């Protein structure tokens, strides 16, 4: 068994590498954009007027309060209804970025608020503008304090990229599965298509549709249960 795994890895290392690369790439894109937007959201939440604060908080709560998978399904299967079409990869990336933004907004807000109000007051007393105070006093400290949270976030994101396979982005888990299917013949795939990108797509499409159907059925059941109740 162990030998088999080693053999598979050795024989298919370019595929694995590609999958690892894709996972890392997705996580890195999500991480950097998530950090960027999350920081903006956090500062808006702490320093802007009530109206903006309520919008930002609402957004963060909705994103944090719903499963990311559902959000990705909505982007991939729901948005085309409104004429917005995206690739599976795009839908996943979007989901990761938005989620990461919402979570990081909360970490960063915590970091901002852990910096004593007194430092803001001191900066303003020196004659610094609000923006100067935010950029040269609060922001640098926020970044320092948020680093441990970022490390965790990146690990989470790496795990989440495995989600991508459900709607079909090319990433590690999927690669592993495709390779497994080739070697152990879990699924009967034509020799020509099995190795091709198209083949991968088809499997994923079927898989994701089945997942969606399951989900919809569940929802239907719930609805019926509610009706009964």
């Amino acid at each position, binding site marked *: 068994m162990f030998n088999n795994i080693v053999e598979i890895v050795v024989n298919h290392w370019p595929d694995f590498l590609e999958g690892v690369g894709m996972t890392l790439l997705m996580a890195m894109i999500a991480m950097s954009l998530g950090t960027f937007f999350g920081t903006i959201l956090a500062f808006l939440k702490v320093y802007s007027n009530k109206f903006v604060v309520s919008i930002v908080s609402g957004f963060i709560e909705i994103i944090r309060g719903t499963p990311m998978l559902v959000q990705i399904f909505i982007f991939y299967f729901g948005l085309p209804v409104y004429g917005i079409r995206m690739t599976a990869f795009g839908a996943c990336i979007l989901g990761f970025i938005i989620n990461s933004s919402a979570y990081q907004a909360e970490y960063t807000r915590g970091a901002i608020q852990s910096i004593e109000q*007194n430092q803001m007051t*001191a900066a303003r007393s020196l*004659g610094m503008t609000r923006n100067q105070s935010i950029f040269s006093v609060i922001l640098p400290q926020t970044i320092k304090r948020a680093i441990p949270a970022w490390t965790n976030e990146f690990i989470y994101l790496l795990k989440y990229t495995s989600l991508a396979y459900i709607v079909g982005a090319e990433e590690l888990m999927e690669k592993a599965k495709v390779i497994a299917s080739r070697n152990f013949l879990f699924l009967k795939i034509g020799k020509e298509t099995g190795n091709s990108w198209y083949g991968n797509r088809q499997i994923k499409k079927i898989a994701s549709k089945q997942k969606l159907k399951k989900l919809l059925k569940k929802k239907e059941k719930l609805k019926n249960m509610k009706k009964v109740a």
Partner: protein
Amino acid sequence: MSENKHILRVENLRKSFGDNVVLKDVSFTMDKGETKVIIGPSGTGKSTLLTCINQLVKPDSGTIYLKDINVTKAEEMNKIRARIGFVFQDFGLFSHLTAMRNVMIGPVKVQKMNKEDAKNLAYEELKRVGLLEHADKYPAQLSGGQKQRVGIARALAMQPELILFDEPTSALDPELIGEVLAVMKDLADNKMTMLIVTHEMGFARTVSDEIIFMEDGVIVEQGTPEKLFKNPEHKRTGEFLFKLTELYGEGDE
């Protein structure tokens, strides 16, 4: 108004927070080179008064003049704040910057001084408060007394016309109070204009030109330390001074 000899003139200042009337008609002046000490029970509005002067808190009514400028109506408040130093009870140092950079940041960001000049200036101010050898330390590496001296150096670097101190030694261990008071006394001797909220009676008595006794949002009495300690007009002043001296001692000055 042509010539105004006062550096600071506070007239009929009022401030409430909701139903809580904190300042009720406060008026006083400060001349160049004067050191005045404000004393009074907790919750009397001493901090509120100081923060009204640099407009961190907006008064409800009354006027504040810094020389000829009406601070309460000023449009460029940041420029005025740059001319008024503020030293805080809990220091308010920027934790991500070294002592040197804490002192440099005001001149660089607010006065757009170039880094080299700001560094030289910060060097001078740190020397003045006796902290040259700690210039490259971060606030977390400094003792309370050293932190507060950095706070004073930071205020000084702006070349302020007036420095406001809000209980600068109240957060310090007793053995560290002296080094901060010594720096403040040195400033007073060099004719820096200072308005200081403090309970340090020894300092008030020997260093200040005048003591302002506040209670319940009004100035009950003001005068020279000599007069207030020996011959107060109001009974409350005498009682309060007696209590403070009992609590905090005469001080070493």
